């Protein structure tokens, strides 16, 4: 018995405005809209609507809107409508619930509970319109013994580092989970911006090898698309141990998104689900991780930094400390609100911890052990604005990864249906007709715009604090104050409450 579930959102059409041009019908891959010749008007099946807003945005007369449905079960604070619906679905299918994008639940967002400082009187703020304001960041191991040549000149014995024009990178999103044009947009934008994008675990399409110097390639538990050229072409290699949206399990790519090209790039069969193993089967402990790090370094002649990406879990500080001692140059930490192309709903919504807390603890632990500068720390897992970036850096991050924000720039409206492969914005799909909707020239331009805008805002906030170089902001926790946080939360974040003095 399949219980009927009333749609969560309803398509509302203003019939006075609708001219029955049928744009909505052509744009909707979910088949919501159709023209009824007998009635002589457009009708919509809300049941199929994922609320991606494609039709709303493209309707030439603005005749469409999507509304939260008013249909409701008897109000029950314990058994809310969504919880009940999920039970009906599982009772019907017997399957694990799948979701996409980041955890949407109303958990605390610590970014929004922190305020940034500014200079007044005793030291001046600095005007970024009139003075240099440096946002360049080098990622990698910083600590070396000073060695000098016969003339007393310091030798450059630093290991390879990544140079970023601003402390932001595009985080791992695989070709397969997102489209060819989405990857092209990210790669071009990264090149123009002087930053990096990340292939995710889906390999690197041949066409994108030319963006190698702005590419971080991922090696994940499925080892999809990993081969010598792939490693050689990259600027850095990231070992994916975990992902914030689904700590403890491997990547999921539904078979319907595995097209011919995706299959060739990943070196896996077409049309079959690609489920990465939960652990790396050659890494059951920290000493095994060290071996993989050095295997990759050997394979690339120690010319590239190795990043280890871990999910923010309860013991993240100790894990990060172990990683820092295992030869990693950069640690990427992904918080529990991080995005995904497909994850089991229960895991996405219940496993892991917020990135703000994980970051604060990792940075502090690495300092307690005097190894903070043996690695750089990059954080991900819902960085939504330049203010979040500034707060992350003040807490101790070297740089951030953004995924969802980058996809929003490309047109994503967070309908959280990536796993269906029917993305109307041409982003999380492999359907050729849909992919065409995302023009990589425009996509790249929008990403560049977004990053420039954020960088300007970061510079404004830095200048306000009297800081003209991003490294003086890193770990500068006196620049943050908490609001509405408990004593324990402040202790974990390592910041004072608003109103407390320096």
């Amino acid at each position, binding site marked *: 018995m399949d219980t009927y579930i009333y749609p969560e959102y309803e398509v509302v059409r203003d019939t006075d405005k609708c001219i029955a041009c049928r744009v909505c019908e052509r744009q909707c891959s979910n088949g919501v809209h159709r023209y009824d010749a007998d009635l002589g008007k457009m009708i919509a099946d809300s049941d199929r609507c994922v609320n991606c807003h494609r039709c709303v945005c493209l309707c030439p007369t603005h005749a469409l809107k999507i509304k939260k449905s008013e249909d409701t079960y008897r109000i029950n604070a314990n058994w809310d409508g969504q919880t009940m619906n999920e039970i009906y679905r599982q009772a019907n299918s017997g399957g694990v619930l799948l979701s996409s994008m980041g955890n949407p639940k109303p958990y605390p967002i610590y970014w929004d509970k922190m305020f940034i400082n500014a200079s007044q009187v005793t030291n001046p703020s600095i005007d970024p319109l009139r*003075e*240099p304001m440096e946002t360049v960041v*080098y990622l990698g191991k910083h600590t*070396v013994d000073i060695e000098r040549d016969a003339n007393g000149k310091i030798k*450059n014995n630093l290991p390879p580092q990544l140079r970023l024009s601003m402390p932001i990178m595009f985080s791992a999103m695989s070709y397969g989970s997102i489209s060819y044009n989405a990857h092209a947009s990210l790669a071009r934008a990264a090149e123009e911006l002087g930053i990096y994008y990340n292939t995710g675990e889906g390999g690197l399409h041949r066409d994108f090898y030319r963006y190698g110097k702005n590419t971080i390639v991922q090696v994940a538990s499925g080892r999809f698309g990993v081969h010598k050229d792939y490693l050689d072409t990259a600027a850095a290699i990231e070992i994916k141990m975990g992902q914030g949206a689904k700590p403890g399990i491997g990547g999921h790519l539904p078979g319907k998104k595995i097209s011919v090209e995706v299959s060739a790039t990943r070196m896996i069969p077409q049309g079959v689900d690609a489920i990465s193993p939960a652990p790396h089967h050659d890494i059951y402990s920290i000493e095994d991780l060290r071996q993989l790090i050095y295997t990759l370094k050997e394979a690339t002649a120690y010319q590239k930094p190795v990043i280890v990406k871990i999910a923010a879990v309860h013991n993240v500080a100790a894990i990060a400390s172990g990683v820092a001692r295992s030869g990693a140059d950069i640690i990427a930490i992904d918080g529990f609100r991080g995005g995904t192309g497909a994850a089991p709903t229960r895991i996405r919504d219940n496993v892991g911890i917020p990135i703000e807390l994980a970051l604060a603890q990792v940075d502090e632990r690495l300092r307690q052990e005097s190894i903070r500068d043996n690695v750089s720390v990059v954080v991900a897992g819902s960085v939504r604005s330049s203010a979040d970036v500034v707060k992350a850096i003040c807490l101790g991050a070297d740089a951030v990864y953004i995924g969802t924000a980058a996809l929003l720039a490309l047109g994503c409206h967070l309908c959280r249906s990536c796993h269906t492969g029917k993305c109307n914005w041409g982003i999380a799909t492999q359907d050729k007709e849909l992919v065409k909707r995302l023009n990589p020239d425009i996509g790249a331009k929008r990403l560049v715009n977004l990053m420039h805008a954020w960088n300007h805002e970061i510079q404004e906030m830095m200048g306000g604090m009297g800081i*003209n170089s991003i490294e003086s902001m890193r*770990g*500068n*926790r006196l620049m943050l104050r908490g609001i509405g946080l408990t004593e324990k939360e402040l202790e974990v974040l390592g910041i004072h409450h608003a109103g407390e003095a*320096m």
Partner: protein
Amino acid sequence: MLSEFQFKTKRAPLEGEVRIPSGCAISAVIDRSGKKMNGECMIRSISTMHDRSNGLGGGFAGYGIYSEYKDFYAFHLFFDNFEARKDAEEFLNSHFEIVYSSEMKTWKHSAITDQPIIWRYFVTPLQKRLQNSLLDEEAYVVSCVNRINAEYKGAYVFSCGKNMGIFKAVGYPEDVGRFYRLDEYEGYAWTCHGRYPTNTPGWWGGAHPFGLLDYSIVHNGEISSYDANRRYIEMFGYKCSLQTDTEVITYIIDYLLRQKKLTLEEVAQVISASFWSTIAEKSPEQQAQETFLRRAFPGLLICGPFSIIFGFNGGLMALNDRLKLRSMVCAEKGDLAYIASEECAIRVIQPELDKIFSPAGGQPVIYRLNGGVKI
């Protein structure tokens, strides 16, 4: 009810309990020929900048002043009471040989109040203790000083270098100088400091210069990179208990000079690094060095306004922040070299100068004793 109310009304925080921004005046002089002068010139210099201080801290450092005990560490200590002195002396006796000790000679001065007990000791580490510690001599001395300051309540070591001494108090610097009778000390180099804190700390230890072995720092500014710098340097065994800029800057310079063996110029390129755009215009060799230093020590870049005078046995270094957000001028007359927040503080003691200039932001000015000069 009243007592409860009084309990809730907290006193103003003391030095070290909060971070207290300060404005300041600084001045310094060195005779590069090694000829000595008494401290009176510095008192006259700093008093010209009276309005840059607010009476809440002043101090001096003199180099070459203890030539008769130049091989011994000269410890200057504040004690709150005799008990504290007894305890600290017990520690000193068990870790050092004290070759001479006496109460610091001072004049009574109406403007200098709440005077602690001030003593001076000339010491050398006990060899057995030193060897057992597996530290080099300087590290041993620093660790002993840190232990007294952290563990001995009511005792505070505020100067511990060889053949140099720091003299400081709560008050205007010119009054502090007279209180310590600096006209009776002869040194080849002097630095001084007048403090303008935005708070009311009443603790003598909080006045400047801040010293570590023979290094002393006087500083004018409020750095905005403070917590980034503090959290970095504390990884290497330093503890910023006073929470002042001067303290953290001293530790940074000590770390880079003593532990990383950088030169003074290289230290300047770390803490007051050129902008990337400026580095890009330099020679390839210079680019390589400065890029290396910025990449190797990003956490030690100091942002925000500062002008510092760093004193060490054999010389002085003046350095401004990279944007030059604090005034500082340098001048020369024969072997004499001067550094001060304002030109007037130099002209008042040396009206005729061969040369006077404002160093650019981040440009270190280093004055050393002339080659061959022995002190």
